């Protein structure tokens, strides 16, 4: 059975990649991630980056490597060019004799510059961690709230995209009238529905991980992220089925998925802007809980218990919606 479910999914994926609209939908999350990076640049890395001259002072390189990301380049010109790039990499170059100077572009935050100055000085005087009572801590920075908000929203958005592709695939089956052919093969009705649903899990999971990687959320708990993404996709899958069943036209089916944008953006705005006493207004929206859960995931501050709690609430609401819609979905696919 699992094999056949995967087969149905494979077929959907193959056809979706060939179709312009679905292919576009599949690419949208990557565009999102890139756009988010443009809006909040330079926070890809939570550690300080330093560029040094190759072979000039191997001991210094070893020392710096303990506390920062080190890049080595061959010429002074190359180092200068590297520093001029958009991110906050800082160069440390020899200035004749035993002296070093710090090469910056000018827009780097002070604390990074100070950090590199200190490192250079400590190295010069031969101070290691063992000599110091103070600890040299990693200058990990907090993630800007706006970036977190955008990534969070984009992640939930991808689940809606998954639902959209399901709707389109159902419309395809309906126009080609192929559901009856599937029913005449040893694939059960539930198997068919399961196969069609996989796209709605696959798209958000892959897209969300792309978004997380591209926007630099690499140190979060990926299991937590996975749990939040999968539970958030259920509701979009259900709506995807219903829209696919109710529409005979590809554009209408995709267009009607927009219905989900309202509760999505509504509850995010509510979560971010409204006072606590009004929060209950959004409790019925699964995206609200996903948003809260995702927020913990992105700031890496959620415990398993927190995540299970939020994922559980989303699952609970989705099950209720499923129970309401399941008969209509089954009937619609006869």
């Amino acid at each position, binding site marked *: 059975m699992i094999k*056949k479910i995967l*087969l149905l999914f494979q*077929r959907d994926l*193959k*056809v979706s990649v*060939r*179709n312009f609209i679905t292919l576009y939908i599949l690419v949208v999350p990557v565009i999102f991630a890139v756009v988010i990076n443009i809006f909040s640049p330079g926070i890809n890395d939570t550690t300080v980056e330093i560029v040094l001259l190759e072979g000039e002072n191997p001991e210094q390189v070893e020392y710096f490597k303990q506390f920062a990301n080190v890049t080595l380049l061959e010429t002074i010109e190359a180092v200068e060019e590297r520093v001029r790039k958009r991110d906050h990499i800082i160069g440390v170059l020899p200035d004749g004799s035993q002296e070093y100077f710090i090469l910056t572009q000018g827009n780097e935050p002070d604390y990074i510059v100070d950090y590199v100055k200190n490192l250079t000085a400590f190295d010069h005087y031969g101070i290691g961690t063992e000599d110091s009572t103070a600890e040299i801590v990693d200058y990990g920075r907090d993630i800007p709230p706006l970036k977190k908000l955008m990534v969070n929203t984009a992640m939930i958005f991808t689940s809606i995209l998954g639902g959209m592709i399901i709707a389109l695939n159902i419309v*395809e089956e309906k*126009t*080609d*009238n*192929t559901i*009856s*052919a*599937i*029913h*005449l*093969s*040893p*694939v*059960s009705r539930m198997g068919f529905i399961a196969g069609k649903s996989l796209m709605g899990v696959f798209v958000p999971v892959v897209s969300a991980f792309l978004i997380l990687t591209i926007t630099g959320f690499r140190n979060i708990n990926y299991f937590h992220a996975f749990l939040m993404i999968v539970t958030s996709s259920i509701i979009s899958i259900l709506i995807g089925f219903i829209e696919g069943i109710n529409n005979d036209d590809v554009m209408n089916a995709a267009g009607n998925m927009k219905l989900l944008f309202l509760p999505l953006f509504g509850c995010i705005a509510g979560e971010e802007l409204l006072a606590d006493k009004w929060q209950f207004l959004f409790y019925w929206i699964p995206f609200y809980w996903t948003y809260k859960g995702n927020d913990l995931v992105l700031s890496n501050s959620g415990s398993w218990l927190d995540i299970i709690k939020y994922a559980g609430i989303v699952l609970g609401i989705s099950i209720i919606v499923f129970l309401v819609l399941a008969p209509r979905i089954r009937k619609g696919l*006869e």
Partner: protein
Amino acid sequence: MKKMIKVENLYHSYNNDDNYAVNDVSFEIRKGEIFGFLGPSGAGKSTTQNILVGLLQLQRGEVEVAGYDIKHIKNKMFNKIGMSFEQSNVYGKMTGLENLEFYRKLFDVETREPMELIRMVGLDGKENIKAGEYSKGMKHRLTFARSMINNPEIWFLDEPTTGLDPAIAANIKDIIRQENEKGVTVFLTTHNMHIADELCDRVAFIVDGKIRLIDSPKKLKLEYGEKLVDVEYFREGELVKDSFSTVAGGGKDRLVDVIRNHEIQTMHTKEATLEEIFISVTGRGLV
């Protein structure tokens, strides 16, 4: 002889009222037989077939297909049956070959080589073209080819030659005969009497959801042949042609009536075709 299909007192109403699309239908199909279900469009042929393959919910009656009770359909049953649909239904965004490759993997039994089937129905050279770009006839042939992919024991064919040009229809007819010679039981639905006449071991005449008669074409011709009278006569100044059976359907009375009341131009007896037998038995044409 082993029964492959058993249908008893089958009824079906699309609106769950007294308006039956299938009305008290009973028949049996033996293993290795080609059974023809003949009737004008709207007679209830497709409805019956769709109930037999589980596409429509059984409302009333007993149906057994390949030993499976249709009330409790098991998915395994579909390994044993194949169906070619009246309206072709293939994935337009996949090529002919991809359609078959995908479909064959859904079965648990040994399946046939897609290319072999594509050649059989004359689609070779077109296998890598998207089915969406096929003509209507080509799609129909692909649907037909797909229905054989799991080596079905019972093969349901809903209007397999309708809308195809004569050469291709003849090819389809040959394939049906070949497969039948290998032992495949065929349930053939059609309003084309020539196909039925040439292929079927037995036929059922169905009109308005009811079976009027079940017999072999041979026996029907023996019974009705030479007892058919073709008459050309004048009615209200116009020359009219009509056939009368002297055996069934009150034909005798009508013939007497015509002779008594109209001027006769020509009149002769002849061997009846299946179509004429159908008309004289049911009082209905086949369109």
